[in-house]
């Protein structure tokens, strides 16, 4: 199985311009971002999975744009491992 070393960030865009900046991040292939919940309306949260290699770049970008964010999941892989363990346990 593919591993997902990285974090989920919860981002709260304040206005349309910040939303536009976030939307433009998605197609940047080198960042390998995966939006779980897309930025849509100012004040609404967006959730994005950021792989380990891009975390620094993304956080610097958000801070430079004054876009508010929180770490929603510290480690995606820890949760995935927990989920897989639960499944295996029940299958046994």
């Amino acid at each position, binding site marked *: *199985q*593919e591993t997902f070393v990285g974090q989920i960030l919860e981002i709260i865009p304040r206005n349309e311009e910040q939303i536009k900046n976030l939307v433009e991040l998605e197609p940047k292939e080198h960042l390998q971002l995966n939006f*779980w919940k897309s930025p*849509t*309306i100012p004040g609404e949260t967006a959730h994005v999975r950021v792989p380990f290699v891009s975390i620094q770049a993304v956080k610097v970008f958000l801070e430079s744009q004054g876009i508010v964010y929180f770490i929603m999941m510290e480690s995606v892989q820890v949760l995935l491992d927990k989920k897989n363990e639960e499944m295996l346990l029940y299958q046994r």
Partner: protein
Amino acid sequence: REWNGSFNFETYRILEEISQEMNNLVAEHPGLGRKVNIGYPFENRLMNVLKFSTGGDKLAIWLGAGIHAWEWVTQLSSPWTASKIASDYGNDPSITLILDIMDVFLLPVTNPDGYVLSQTKTHMYRKTRSKLSGSLCVGVDPKWNWDTGFGGPGANNNSCSNSYHRPSANSEVEVKSLEDFTKSHGEVKAIITLHSYSQLFLFPWVYACAESHNFDELEIKNEVAQENAQSLSSLHGTTYKMGPVCLLMYQGSGGSIDWFNDSGIKYSFVFALRDTGLYGFLLLANQTLPTAKGTWLGLKTIMEHIQDHPY
């Protein structure tokens, strides 16, 4: 051990286990439930829908889950919901009345290919598995592949995107099968598509914002939504946002909810099920049952409304 109603709904399940539970359910309720095959996705797995019917072909309510592979909790809520429908018939007056006059179809896993891949190779997989010549990326987002306003604003034409719509409408057999079934049945009166994440209850339209559409029709949907909201919060206090997709989220084209609505199905809704706000797609297994139970109260309210307001 699982044969006699002891299936544990509070854990994540692989496709075969869900399928087996469907078989068990049909065996336990031979006069009420049966399996109907509606198609085969790209990798030739079965798209089996459960039909709950007290006989004949009546007006129908369709519940569809699992169109997006990575929303595991949706796939898990459907076996519990199926079991609840079957066990409540004859015991709960409301469900008994609904099933006496209507059939209920429940498709537990709309995108079985994607679901298997999400459990075997990569958890973060959402799309179908169909191949597109000339592209390195595989799969299409079945939510945006419907023949309604297809290819317009908001839809994604990058084949590697999670929300890729493909060059032509209903190219995906998962979509085409549902469209064909709905057309050939002819008496489907309600479609509720179940997703997870975000706690939303959505109604048309996605391709156009509501102002340009029939206000009376929107009022009816709002009425259903308000009743639903009360039921949803009654168990865990879970709050849902409700409204047309375009106003609540974004504008998009080729959306399933619009296709059903434009096909004359007045009760066309999308449920985005409960999460804790912290786990998203990774909602832990012990939250699956509370999610299913909370959602059920909303679904039941909607079904009651449909039964009370036929068209």
